[in-house]
């Protein structure tokens, strides 16, 4: 099989494909990976804007959202920029749905899975290139259906990303008609996309590893994507089926979930979470894999406990099927089950702990290089730890009585999904960019983006623990309606201000990405980047000082605060401007073949990797993926194709 693919690709190399077959209906796994990346990044903008809209409403309830005042007062959702309750619910629902299914999954699984698996195991492409292309275009179809929901009568789905029945299945309860049906249809379609991807990944890894690429020489990120694919293969059909049942209930008046007609509402929750818990590991495993990949490279040291890492992932893959009930402790499910689910949930925390300790072990004794990808990997580790630890509170079914459905949950999953998956995603993009696009993203701009994102991520999501402990329910439109929450409103304001800063902090990344891809390095453009980044930081600095002087609730800063804010803003802006002026490399310059001195096979392939990835012969693997700083070797790295002193061969595979 791999022989014929190889031949086919060999033939391809001699003629240029047309525009359509190269950029649109491409069969090349690297192009499909880039397509998934674009899809995810575009949807990230949509998801992010939705979040800022509902954060605005939470901080300054029932005021006009800045920038949306122009909307007609006949609009159902945001008349004159005021958020209505149903629009609020919709924004919350669609923010989560988009971020999970159309941002993190397409990028971490679709993009990195596609890009890395063949390159890192020494294959020329995926096992089923046509299926691979279909997987992407079906995902686009899903995204189109999902987006269409915003434009239909009655608005988009507004019953939470978890779509609890019967709120979601009986249109009269929300007043949402087509929107919710399109939501379910889109998930149904997206489940097929994931399914196709999973089949491809699993087949490819099992059958197409190059000579010498034994299972225990497979890089951990590929292992993680493999386990993710297995979870995807088994979990997504459940989501698809549940989505289909929801459509049946809504359109054909079946009554799977409607208790008024004899249905069972908890059945939806069981289906959703039986899919949903494996799903959260689909979101985090590739992130764990990326961290496990970056840490050894930038510690110049073998990963600590390679096998423990693999076994921990396999344990997670198994255990994630028997913990779903921890989302349902207070659902009315038989409470005796709560005890069982608490037990399994804490058991699954153990492999996560093992992985964390091994990452620390990898840092120990390293020679650490603080590149932008490494900063993201380090952030991943510590933020994942916080997310895992907050999981302990909720895993305790007793404590969960109180904190279930509060902001504590929101804090938890943002630490694991944003702090974990999204930081890994940014780190991975920066790290593999040279291989993906043939040029390296700028490190100085990357550092500005990283630090801003890291600081404001924590300022947005850490205080949510406090809100949750204070009893602040999630998914409420206006916290000021509750007396017991009013004292905490300054925290809500602080979070929203930080969220706006977090949004602005993405601007350096956008510049970095586009300037590098399109090689925009003109003098004026560089000045523009420096100026805008400096302005962003200055503006944030100004606002921070104003808030420090005046507190959260005072909209107009005093003259003193204004002066102090301006001084700080100018100082910060000048600092960032000059830092970038001095440190930004030429944007979009060609990247060397192996800019990070890394061992794994993707860096053996030429840059940019051609159709078919490797030259006429496939690389042969002779050592493990993380043999850095091997005693007796001149360089502190060597490609996996080099032989290794037999003394170390046993330990290092």
């Amino acid at each position, binding site marked *: 099989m791999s022989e014929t693919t190889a031949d086919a690709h060999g033939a391809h190399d001699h003629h240029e494909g047309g525009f359509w077959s190269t950029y649109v209906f491409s069969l090349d796994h690297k192009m499909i990976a880039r397509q998934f990346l674009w899809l995810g990044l575009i949807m990230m903008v949509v998801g992010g804007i939705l979040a800022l809209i509902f954060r605005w409403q939470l901080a300054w309830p029932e005021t006009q959202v800045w920038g949306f005042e122009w909307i007609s007062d006949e609009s159902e959702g945001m008349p004159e920029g005021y958020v209505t309750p149903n629009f609020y619910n919709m924004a919350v629902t669609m923010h989560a749905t988009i971020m999970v299914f159309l941002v993190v999954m397409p990028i971490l699984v679709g993009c990195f899975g596609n890009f890395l698996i063949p390159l890192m195991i020494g294959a020329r492409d995926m096992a089923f290139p046509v299926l691979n292309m279909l997987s992407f275009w079906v995902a686009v179809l899903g995204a189109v259906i999902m987006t269409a929901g915003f434009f239909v009568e009655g608005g988009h789905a507004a019953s939470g990303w978890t779509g609890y029945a019967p709120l979601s299945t009986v249109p009269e*309860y929300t007043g949402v008609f087509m929107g919710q049906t399109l939501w379910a249809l889109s998930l149904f379609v997206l489940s097929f996309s994931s399914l196709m991807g999973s089949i491809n990944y699993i087949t490819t890894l099992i059958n197409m590893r190059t000579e010498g690429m034994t299972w225990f020489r497979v890089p951990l990120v590929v292992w993680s994507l493999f386990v993710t694919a297995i979870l995807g293969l088994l979990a997504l059909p459940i989501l698809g089926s549940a989505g289909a049942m929801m459509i049946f209930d809504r359109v054909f008046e079946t009554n799977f979930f409607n208790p008024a007609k004899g249905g069972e509402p908890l059945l939806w929750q069981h289906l959703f979470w039986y899919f949903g818990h494996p799903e959260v590991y689909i979101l985090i495993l590739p992130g764990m894999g990326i961290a496990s990949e970056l840490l050894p490279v930038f510690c110049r040291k073998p990963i600590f406990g390679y096998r423990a890492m693999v076994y921990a992932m396999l344990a997670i893959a198994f255990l994630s099927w028997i913990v779903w009930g921890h989302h349902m402790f207070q659902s009315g499910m038989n409470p005796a089950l709560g005890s069982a689910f608490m037990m399994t949930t804490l058991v699954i925390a153990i492999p996560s702990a093992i992985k964390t300790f091994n990452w620390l072990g990898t840092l120990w004794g390293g020679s650490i290089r603080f590149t932008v990808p490494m900063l993201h990997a380090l952030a991943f580790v510590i933020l994942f730890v916080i997310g895992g630890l907050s999981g302990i509170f909720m895993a305790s079914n007793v404590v969960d009585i109180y904190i279930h459905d509060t902001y504590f949950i929101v804090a938890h999953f943002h630490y694991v999904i944003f702090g974990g998956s999204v930081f890994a995603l940014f780190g991975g993009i920066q790290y593999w960019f040279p291989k993906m696009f043939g040029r390296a993203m700028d490190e100085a701009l990357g550092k500005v983006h990283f630090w801003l994102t890291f600081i404001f991520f924590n300022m947005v999501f850490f205080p949510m623990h406090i809100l949750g402990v204070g*009893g602040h329910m999630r998914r409420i*439109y206006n916290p000021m309606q509750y007396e017991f929450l009013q004292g905490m409103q300054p925290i809500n304001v602080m979070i929203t201000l930080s969220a706006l800063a977090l949004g602005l902090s993405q601007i350096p990344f956008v510049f970095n990405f586009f300037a590098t891809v399109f090689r925009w390095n003109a003098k004026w453009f560089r000045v523009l980047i420096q100026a805008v980044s400096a302005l962003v930081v200055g503006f944030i600095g100004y606002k921070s000082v104003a808030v420090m002087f005046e507190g959260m609730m005072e909209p107009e800063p005093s003259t003193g605060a204004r002066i102090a804010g301006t001084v700080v803003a100018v100082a910060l802006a000048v600092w960032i401007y000059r830092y970038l002026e001095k440190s930004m490399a030429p944007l979009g310059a060609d990247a060397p073949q192996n800019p990070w001195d890394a061992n794994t096979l993707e860096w053996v392939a030429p840059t940019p990797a051609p159709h078919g990835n490797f030259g006429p012969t496939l690389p042969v693997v002779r050592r493990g993926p993380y043999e850095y*700083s091997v005693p007796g070797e001149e360089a502190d790295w060597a490609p996996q194709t080099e032989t290794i002193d037999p003394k*170390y061969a046993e330990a290092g595979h």
Partner: protein
Amino acid sequence: MMSWLPENISIEGEEIDFLFYVSYYLTVVVFIGVAVAMAYFIIKYRAKPGVKAKYTHGNNTLEILWTVIPTFILLVFILMTQTSWAKLKLAIPQNPHVRVEVTGKQFNWIIRYPGDDGKFGTKDDLVLDNQLNVPVNKQVLISLKGADVIHSFFIPQTRMKQDVVPGRTIPLWFTPTKVGKYEIPCAELCGFGHSGMNGEMIVHSEADYAKWRKKAWEEKDK
């Protein structure tokens, strides 16, 4: 962070707070340990010219230790939790002092009090919207019912929360220990009026409770 917990006013809530503190100290200690180790490694092992990284693939003793120790701690934690869980969720009180039936209905709590016959569904029931009256220091057993979608009955100061599922009757019990007024928000998204679906629990002293009952039924019979 603990001071952010609202005041607890129920006997059952103490179990929850205790385990909350256990989780809190456990996780804070672990977090500090990990963060300090990480910071130390990051600073100590930053790249320095001429210094090569250690060449090691791991250590089996360590792997075993950091598997077994967390497992042991979590096991203890599980055992500590389960007796509380049984008390709070499984041991339905047989002789509660007060019985009330609460129905979640978009976007109200409909609260039904039995009359002197102590039975629900008879003529002498009293039905109020969003107002739960209970005596202090007496165990209250609430039967939660749903009329339309799923809601979640939540009284932050008693630490109690329970989803309300249409088609089921779910028991919830607690013993309030402090006279006062407390909010009863709905904690599960239930539609556009979810935010603001909010009842009030009035915990009366024993004497006031008797007075309230007398007055409420008189008004009803008028």
